């Protein structure tokens, strides 16, 4: 429950920041101060939990600029877990269950390139953080802390209109997740709106 209070506090500090896609020259690499963002991601992954599993991940996330291009992120993931002792054995039992996971971390753009009079920007971001998850699998419920590092590849579009969101991001996330028993994986594609 404390994690949710933290997320609530993070979200309550959110406020709009200017975005400056239309400043500078085409080849400039000046920092773009990105706004607070809200979005979602659909993904798939797995985690070492004592049984082979596939996790379908449905994440809601917020981001908030800290300083420069460093942004703080908070996510809640609903997990739909398919597990089996042996997927290759057609006689092996398969189970479905649920999980919940929260992630906190930071991300930063390491490569970017702007096109079309600064209205479109391709980017590569690195991220790092940690969190905790609750996973229901056939042998019981596991509460497992984790740390993660990842890479995000995507593009953002800047809006020309004065109303609505300033920016729309579409991205692919690749995220190794480290838990006590090994390394898992998460990833997917997401959409984020920046106000």
């Amino acid at each position, binding site marked *: *429950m404390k994690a*949710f209070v933290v*997320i*609530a506090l993070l*979200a*309550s500090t*959110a*406020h*709009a920041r200017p975005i400056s896609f239309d400043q500078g020259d085409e080849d400039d690499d000046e920092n773009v101060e990105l706004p*607070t963002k*809200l*979005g*979602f991601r*659909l993904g798939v992954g797995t985690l070492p939990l004592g049984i082979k599993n596939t996790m*379908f991940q*449905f994440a*809601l996330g*917020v981001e908030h600029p800290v300083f420069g291009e460093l942004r703080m992120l908070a996510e*809640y993931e*609903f997990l*739909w877990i398919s597990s089996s002792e042996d997927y290759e054995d*057609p*006689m*092996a*039992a*398969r*189970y*479905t*269950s*649920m999980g*919940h996971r929260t992630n906190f971390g930071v991300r930063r753009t390491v490569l970017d390139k702007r096109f079309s009079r600064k209205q479109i920007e391709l980017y590569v971001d690195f991220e790092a953080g940690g969190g905790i998850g*609750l996973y*229901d*699998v*056939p*042998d*019981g*419920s*596991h*509460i497992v802390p984790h740390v993660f590092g990842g890479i995000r590849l995507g593009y953002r*579009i800047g*809006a*020309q*209109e*004065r*109303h*609505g*969101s*300033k*920016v*729309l991001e579409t991205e692919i996330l690749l995220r190794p997740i480290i838990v006590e028993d090994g390394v898992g994986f998460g990833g997917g594609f997401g*959409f984020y*709106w920046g*106000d």
Partner: protein
Amino acid sequence: MRFAAGILLLAVLCRTVVADPERSRVHPVKRLTFGAFFVGHGGTLDGESEGGMGPVVEVAYGSGRTQYFVETGFAWVTLTDEYSNELDTGKQLRGGIGARYIARSFPMDNDGAVEMILEGAVGAHKFWWASGDELVRPEISFGFGLQTRKYEDPHVSVRFGLRVFFAPTGEHTTTTARCTGTCDTSTVSNAGILGFIGGAL
């Protein structure tokens, strides 16, 4: 508790504020819309796998950035055990009422927008199994999605998204023990996910 916490988080995310009132302004939705969607779902029924697909229609009343809708749908469903053996087949009828909120709206040339939606619904569904059994489950669902919406005639919107649903049967009341580390019981769940894609006018 976890479900309640998820709802709380959704509400908090939904209320993430913007400082600029102009930026937070969203072109109002059409007052009355009719939608049709193709829906696929997968979940558990007292621990067994249950899934299906079929059409859903909705009528929505809108105001500002919120829509209130009534929906009904039909699906062909299959029940399988953990060894993928087919236990039964049948049909499912769903109905519910709900609300949809445009959490974010990215304008496109003042003609329309790409929007993030949050939605939730309450209702029930009934199974008619080939074996002759019938079952009614209440259902509560919430989720998110993306829609593209045109502001002017024909006010078309195309939408895809996903909801998580919970549908208890009353047969099993087992819940995950509140513990840390590894527990020796797991949840007998009656829940699932529901994906939809379609449009509204």
